[in-house]
């Protein structure tokens, strides 16, 4: 029972990070039909940037965090302006499925290369934001960063769901993803929604990188596999509902921990991916009625 509980909690905290990435994929896809495969790299930039500023350059923690997040936001903004805008708007618009995968994949390569030169190749982490001994729940240990992470994941998921459902902006945003042209005809400024969401999701990923890093640590290329897990979580949630994306991320995290605990710790990722991919192949309907070409 204790093992099950421990595994469950461990799964929940790794699931929380997948959940947030799934949320990032879902929200950006809903506004612009773009998949940001660099989302894990933004998280890595968050963690490694804060570590660099705080530990190496000895900045105050709060300043380091704010500066780091601001730089991530600025970088995302410039990237959107320079690349996504050209790729998605105007006469040079590119085929949807290429935009979907390859632009942000190149971005991911670029960020990893940049981080390798700026921060080196060691595993580092930002300092824990909430210090103290681990918390006790029914005899189970739970690290404080994990509590923070799970709480934040659920909060942001709920927040975005409420935003989409109850605010006019949110509805306009959802319309952009359903039919970009239709939304534009109705007077919705779809490009600025995309830009805003791209920057916001980059910063959100950065925040979660900072919060999560004390538990696992980051190296310059750890973003890639995190992005993949977020992507597949979002895919299982059909890229539509933020709450569903968070739930899928948490469930996949728990499934991963269970596979690791009860089946094989070496093959936990391999098994997890095998099951998930098999599910997509056997029942493609899981992905929902995706039409990235709209």
């Amino acid at each position, binding site marked *: 029972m204790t093992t099950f509980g421990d595994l469950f909690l461990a799964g929940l905290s790794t699931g929380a990070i997948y959940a947030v990435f799934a949320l990032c994929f879902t929200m950006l896809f809903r506004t612009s039909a773009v998949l940001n495969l660099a989302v894990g790299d933004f998280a890595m930039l968050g963690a490694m940037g804060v570590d660099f500023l705080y530990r190496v350059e000895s900045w105050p923690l709060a300043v380091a965090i704010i500066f780091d997040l601001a730089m991530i936001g600025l970088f995302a903004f410039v990237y959107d302006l320079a690349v996504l805008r050209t790729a998605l708007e105007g006469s040079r618009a590119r085929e949807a*499925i290429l935009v979907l995968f390859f632009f942000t994949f190149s971005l991911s*390569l*670029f960020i*990893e290369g940049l981080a390798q030169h700026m921060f080196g190749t060691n595993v580092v982490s930002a300092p824990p934001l909430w210090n103290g001994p681990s918390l006790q729940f029914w005899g189970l240990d739970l690290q404080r960063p994990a509590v923070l992470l799970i709480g934040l994941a659920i909060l942001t998921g709920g927040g975005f769901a409420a935003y989409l459902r109850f605010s006019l902006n949110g509805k306009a945003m959802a319309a952009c993803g359903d039919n970009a042209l239709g939304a534009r005809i109705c007077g919705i400024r779809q490009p600025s929604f995309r830009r805003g969401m791209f920057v916001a999701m980059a910063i959100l990923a950065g925040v979660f990188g900072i919060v999560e890093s004390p538990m696992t640590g980051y190296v310059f290329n750890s973003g890639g*596999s995190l992005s*993949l897990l977020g*992507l597949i979580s979002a895919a299982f949630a059909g890229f539509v509902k933020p709450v569903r994306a968070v739930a899928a991320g948490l469930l996949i995290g728990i499934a991963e921990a269970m596979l690791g605990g009860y089946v094989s710790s070496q093959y936990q990722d391999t098994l997890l*991916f095998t099951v998930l991919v098999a599910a*997509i192949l056997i029942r493609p309907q899981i992905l929902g009625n995706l039409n990235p070409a709209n």
Partner: protein
Amino acid sequence: MSTVETTTRTTPRLTDALTRVPGFRQRGQLTRPALLAVVVTGLGLAVLITLNGNYNDSIFVLGLCYAITVMGMVVQIGHTNQLAFHQAFFMLVGGYTVGVLNTKYNVPIVLAILTVVAASAFLGTLIGSVATRVPGFGLALATLFFSVIASGYVGYSSYLGQATGINGIGNIWSGPTYVTSLERSGAVALALLGIGIFVCSRIMHSGIGLELSLVGENERMAASLGINTRRRKLEVFVLSAMLAALGGGVFAGTQTLVSPGNFDQTAELSLLIMLFLGGRQAIVGGLIGTGLVEYLQEGNTFISSHILIIEGVLFTLILLYAPEGLLGVVLRVYRNVRRLSRKPKQAAPVAPAVGVPSDALAAEVVAAPVASAGNATAAPVTTRPVPPEAVSTSLRQSESSAQVLALECQGVTKRFGGVVAVDDVSIKVAPLGVHALCGPNGAGKSTLFELICGGLEGDAGDMFIEGHHVNKIPAYQRAQLGVARTLQAVRLMNSRSALDNVAVAAVPSHRTFLTHAIVRSDLAVAYDRAWEALEELGLGAVAQQRVGDLTLESQRMVELARAMVTNPKILLLDEPASGLSSEQRARLAAKLVKLGETVTVFLVEHDLQMVMDIAEEIFVLLDGRVVFTGNSEEFRTSSIVRQELMGLLANDALETI
């Protein structure tokens, strides 16, 4: 229009087209791919000998392994537009199988490679038959994880050497000792690459290649022309799996070691960068990309230490400004330079093809389709657009026209949720002549057409085409039975020429395997038939123009030609006159009557005047039910027609209510 006129007007475009479609001439179809393969292999050997066994030589040989894999990606991702990321996975399968067979069972490398290529054909079919069911985006997403799964597995398997992999694999060719082992293995790799180039180039430039590009452009359109899209997608999946396994096997046999890191997701990404950087739609593009990326990654210490940044920037720039890759840039520059340099000295619009005497070529090309086949070298060229079997069937059909109906629906019903779009429809369409289906918007006309073509499956009732019960027969097979159609909205490959668009339907190889294309291509036959169909409809002059540049009338005619070239028995036309002027409608009507002499024309049309003029039998559909059947005279006087159809057009029908 006289033949002479057509010839002079289309000559420049035809020669231009030859640079794009090397398969146009029967002779060129074999020599081009073979020449390409021989030239690449020869150049490769020269490079191999020049480098003479130093470090660059090993990079070159490594690049050859990736190049073999990239060839399959050119066909699958570039040409057929099927984005799938399974290549690194199959390279791993190839590399590790060869490694295990050689080190643990002492199987010679070449035999091991042959085994694994055959095995991967089987494995590819197994995985592909599941994977190609998944629509485009899902296929990319699912296959994205293949290499993650496989490298994750071998990385922990102690049988497969865990993270270090398998060492001490034998050399692919242990032959003569007066050349270095690198040169020996490089020579074998080059030979295999040459075979890969030949096979892929043959496929892309065959009739099946044309089919594949249509599958990439619009699957529904392809199916409506009788192409089994799922099988074609599976075939290119298997092809790229086999070439990837070959690449992996050659990797094992030339590098003599394999490790999980060689074939993980990073390797897959490298392969994709190679493909897109060079130019994903052409063999040469793939080769350029492979060479460049391989050099960047290994050849220069400064670059390779900044490789991630450089690849990221380079890839972004290519996608933004040259999505057709470096080869595309080179070709674009070359064309511009050529155009600029020619302008001042030559007023005539004749554009000679690269490296070929223009006049001879133009004469040959034009002579083949326009005049009857006096050319003895073009063996399978048919003199008539209709093959002999088809002629005899149509003759037989007209003799016994009373017995076999062209089309029969018995109680056909289709529901969409609560809405009954087609409600217990029973109609009989006699062979030949023009038949029309009328009715107000939302009456279920297009749905009924969709049911006839097989695009939708009915909920009840039976459908017979030429006496065949077709309820369970998929769309592409109904097309093969002789159902051709055009849609309300024009659907053509806009970036291709009218000739290409029609030829794709005329390819007689719809039923053959992909491998058929390697042995022989039916493209010349297809082009001949397409040419004749276009000429017949008066489109000879625009045959070589991009379809996107044509007028709506011409586009509809191209669609009609495309439908006709399949030798259909029933031609379904959904509102062929919509968007046309009255003059154009008159021309269309005349053509339809003429077509009705040889095929059964069944059209949906809102232009009642045109329908009454040309149709010998008219059906009226209202709220999914047939409310009227009769000839045009009965149609004119029928009260229900006046009430329901004319009422929508003229106010005087209100009196009858």
